[in-house]
């Protein structure tokens, strides 16, 4: 039906996320594709962004891709090596926290951008248990902008989370603020099908961009809840420059891209 795209789903996801990062941003990064997006941004559009880990390293050189946020590779040539408490304070403190953009993953997301990384089924006796919050709940509580990376599937884009690990817009409208949280939480969702954002007033997810070869209908088919797709436009596909830098400078060994 379509010609084969000159990039993989991982590649377009990485580039879409990288474009969210601005010069001067402090990028809270996990590992895997989130790390790659941070590196792509630094190499393409935000050279003065700063990569930052919850374990306490900041602006690490990253001669090799780390496989965990406690990988010794992040401790080399950092601006500072500190501790967990320091890293989270940097985000909780609005002076520095307002500059942080986080990249998170999750097992489930709901229409308000709340995330579940804890379990499927009953909390006390789950069908599937995941790793738990880690720093996810903290980051989603503290920082103004978070990118959620998700595979776009109905069982992941759900009406009701089995467990609310990391707060987004909670129940929408001003419920986040009423609960005691600062403005923030997941502000953009990047999947293998498109890019979603949240309505400023209602806090509800809407489709912002769909990728070449993907239709809004396909995205709705893979989403359990209703979503406004009326404002959606076709995403600008990754440029040649973006792809070249991503492939040749960020992950030449294709450790994450494959």
């Amino acid at each position, binding site marked *: 039906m379509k010609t084969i795209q000159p990039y993989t789903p991982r590649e377009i996801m990485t580039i879409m996320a990288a474009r969210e990062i601005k010069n001067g941003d402090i990028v809270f990064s996990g590992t895997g594709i989130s790390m790659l997006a941070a590196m792509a941004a630094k190499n393409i559009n935000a050279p003065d962004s700063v990569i930052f880990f919850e374990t*306490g390293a900041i602006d690490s050189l990253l001669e090799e891709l780390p496989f965990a946020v406690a990988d010794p590779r992040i401790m080399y040539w950092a601006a500072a090596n500190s501790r967990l408490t320091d890293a989270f304070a940097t985000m909780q403190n609005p002076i520095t926290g307002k500059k942080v953009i986080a990249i998170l993953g999750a097992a489930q997301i709901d229409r308000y951008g709340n995330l579940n990384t804890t379990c499927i089924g009953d909390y006390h006796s789950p069908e599937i248990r995941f790793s738990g919050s880690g720093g996810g709940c903290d980051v989603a509580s503290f920082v103004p902008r978070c990118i959620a990376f998700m595979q776009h599937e109905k069982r992941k884009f759900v009406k009701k989370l089995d467990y609310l690990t990391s707060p987004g817009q909670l129940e929408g409208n001003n419920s986040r603020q009423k609960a005691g949280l600062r403005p923030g939480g997941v502000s953009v969702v990047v999947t293998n099908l498109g890019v979603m954002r949240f309505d400023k007033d209602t806090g509800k997810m809407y489709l912002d961009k769909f990728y070449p070869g993907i239709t809004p209908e396909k995205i709705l088919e893979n989403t359990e809840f209703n979503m406004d797709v009326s404002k959606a436009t076709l995403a600008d596909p990754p440029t040649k420059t973006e792809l070249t830098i991503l492939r040749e400078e960020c992950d030449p060994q294709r450790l994450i891209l494959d």
Partner: protein
Amino acid sequence: MTNSLNKVIPLKQAIEQYVKNGSHISIGGFTINRNPMAAVYEIIRQKISDLHLYAHSNGTGLDELIGAGCISKLEIAYAGNGKAAPTCIRFARAIQNNEILFEDYSNYMMSLRFTAGAMGVPFLPTLSGFGSDILTKWGFSKSMRRSDPKIVDDKLTVIDNPFGNWTGASKVVLVPAINPDITIIHVQKADATGTCSMQGLAFADIEQVKASKHVIVTCEQLVTKEELRQNPDLNQIPFIHVSAVCHVPLGAYPTAVFGHYDYDSQYLRKFAIAAKNSDKFKNYQNKYIYGAKDHEAFLEIIGQKRIDTITADPRTGYSVNMKRD
């Protein structure tokens, strides 16, 4: 133990002396880095049970302890073992099979709870978690809490900001202090009195140590007091917090120690594969843990060739271009 006397004892003896059935315990490190694995394996060998473990993001050590049935209660933020197992496998299984009691926090909350314990205050405040199930879903019931004096009566609590809207916060979450009976950490350098110097990220080791009634330090290098005194700025833990010092080179293997060795991704993968199957897991344990009388014997099974592969490059502190599974 505050004194500056020689605290060096064998690891076996340190575990016997300080880790008891039912102890409340914490271990240092983060996922696949600086877990006190030699101590973890010794706890398993000594078949210590009914441990209450406090963890932020413990990985390898946690999953071995759960896999061996040492843990009955767990307060935790994250259980992952790097690329080998994004969710720790025996951990997930133990919860899915209702084999352990557990309660979830965030990493910052757990770090603050250790910090509160280290500071000697009953709680610390945070703005994390409002509206989340971390606040509302408790793993330990009220009645269990009330009946156990070692567990705080409330998981956490929310209060209005007593200073009006100062700093823009209307409410705060208060998380209660943790004071483990025993914390075990693995560090790069320690002297015989227990003063420690960690290299690279300290994670929450310092707070865990200072919060604990007793502390066992295992170290790569047992150095002279004089060596550490030359750089007091690099010594994050003074001896007054430490009960026992054990000289255990490669004591964090298969997790990494910055400046000394990398994680062994091959071993972690082998563990992950075994962990998925009860028989395979028994075989794994029999060969690597119960099949070795101590950490030296364990390392002999691993072999020098594997150790050479993960040995850190002196410039970067990790094993450059190591094949990572």
